[in-house]
């Protein structure tokens, strides 16, 4: 059959995959800058490692699959996955952690399913979960925010630490790292302390963990900008943050000394990142707007459950992956009413 016959329409709108990925990347910039200021150079190194690994891994698999390499890389999806993973991982993580996580995300969770558009699971979250389960130690030692640090590492020193796990003379790991607020909360509650005691620890800031709440705030700003640019719609963020806040409010009301309040939950961990950047991934999420709302509610609900009763401090990654599994079912049950198929006609 002739390949020269093309069908209408012959004009096209401005929507473009590459442009969408670019806009999302720009929306992450405030958070990246915030992290640089509060948590040191780690994030920059992580980003560079992640992005290069992602591009190389994707190029290699595409070449093996005999697909056009340059055109596909230009869609920017590999870079975006790398960025999201890099932001989710500890700034002081060793280089091999980043590389393994990113390579797994791109190769196994994306390319082996067929590439962009074919993956049922969010690749960044799949990589994150792999690392969390395989290397729990490295994944839970986070950089300490500025006020909690007793030492600062320069860019060169951070790079050295990342590549060799060697710290400069005179600086110990304790001096530059600390547990996250969520982690502290879970451990302390487990030991029988009450919330008001735990909250007085210097790790906690006004709403959530010190430093973390600022990052979350910057991510929120980026997310709102994406909403304005019409790159994402409000359904997933509202669904997720709404259900998370609602659950937190309910349980905090029941027992204020055991369950953290809604503002804490919204400002801690990956809540904002998950709501605006991860659960909004179109490929692995629900398609229709109603479906996206249901998807968001599900993620928020599961996040609260895992954070409160699960053994992991932050449940966003698992919640997203579980809802990815439910996405086809959600799509099936949220189909729109087709014109002309109403009972009234």
């Amino acid at each position, binding site marked *: *059959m*002739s*390949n020269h*016959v093309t*069908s209408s329409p012959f004009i096209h709108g401005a929507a473009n995959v590459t442009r969408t990925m670019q806009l999302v990347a720009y929306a992450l910039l405030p958070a990246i800058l915030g992290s640089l200021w509060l948590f040191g150079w780690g994030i920059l190194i992580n980003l560079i490692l992640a992005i290069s690994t992602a591009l190389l891994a994707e190029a290699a698999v595409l070449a093996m699959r*005999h*697909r*056009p390499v340059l*055109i596909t890389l230009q869609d920017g999806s590999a870079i975006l996955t790398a960025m999201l993973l890099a932001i989710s991982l500890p700034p002081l993580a060793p280089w091999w952690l980043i590389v393994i996580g990113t390579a797994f995300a791109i190769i196994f969770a994306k390319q082996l399913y067929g590439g962009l558009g074919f993956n049922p699971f969010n690749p960044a979250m799949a990589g994150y979960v792999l690392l969390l389960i395989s290397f729990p130690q490295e994944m839970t030692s986070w950089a300490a925010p500025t006020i909690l640090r007793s030492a600062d590492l320069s860019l060169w020193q951070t790079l050295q630490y990342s590549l060799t796990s060697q710290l400069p003379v005179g600086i110990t790991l304790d001096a530059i790292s600390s547990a996250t607020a969520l982690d502290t909360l879970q451990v302390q509650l487990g030991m029988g302390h009450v919330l008001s005691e735990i909250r007085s620890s210097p790790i906690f800031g006004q709403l959530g963990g010190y430093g973390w709440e600022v990052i979350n705030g910057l991510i929120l700003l980026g997310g709102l900008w994406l909403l304005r640019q019409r790159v994402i719609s409000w359904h997933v963020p509202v669904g997720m943050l709404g259900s998370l806040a609602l659950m937190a409010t309910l349980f905090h009301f029941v027992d204020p000394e055991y369950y953290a309040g809604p503002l804490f939950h919204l400002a801690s961990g990956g809540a904002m990142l998950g709501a605006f950047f991860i659960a909004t991934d179109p490929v692995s999420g629900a398609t229709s707007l109603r479906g996206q709302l249901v998807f968001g509610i599900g993620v928020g609900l599961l996040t609260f459950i895992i954070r409160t009763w699960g053994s992991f401090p932050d449940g966003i990654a698992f919640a997203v992956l579980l809802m990815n599994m439910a996405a086809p079912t959600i799509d099936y049950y949220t189909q729109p009413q087709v014109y002309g198929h109403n009972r009234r006609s």
Partner: protein
Amino acid sequence: MLTAILALAVLALVFGLILGYAAVRFKVESDPIVDRIDAILPQSQCGQCGFAGCRPYAEALARGEVDINLCPPGGEAVVMGLADLLGRDVKPVEGGAKKKMIAHIDETTCIGCTLCIQACPVDAILGAAKQMHTIIADECTGCELCVAPCPVNCIKMISVKVAPATWIWPYPPTSQQAKEDS
């Protein structure tokens, strides 16, 4: 230990009985598999699959003796239909896809021997002994069984003319193909 084995055995027995009862009580009456396979085949009765017609091929498929990609007139659509029905893998048609052709008798050469009429599996040739033979184009399935018996070689296969009303839009090229074309 013994109670465990006993308990599992009893469970197995009970569930086996339930399943057996259900298999009989709730049996779904459907066409025998051969009829359903035959309904998918294009009925050219051409013999290109190696069987003497579509029904024998359907029967062989039902018995699981042969592959599903032996029917050139059926093309991809038949392979996919059979793959779906029989739960087997889709394969490219044996020998590649062929264009639909119909037979045409050259009337200046025809001698009226009726050998082609006897060969046509769907009686699509009109004629009698010592009378002109002609192919009824609408009935011809393109099986080519009439071409060989003709002693004066007056039967040719011609391609079916496509009209705007029966034209099929081409399958859009993938990005890979578009790259190769450009």
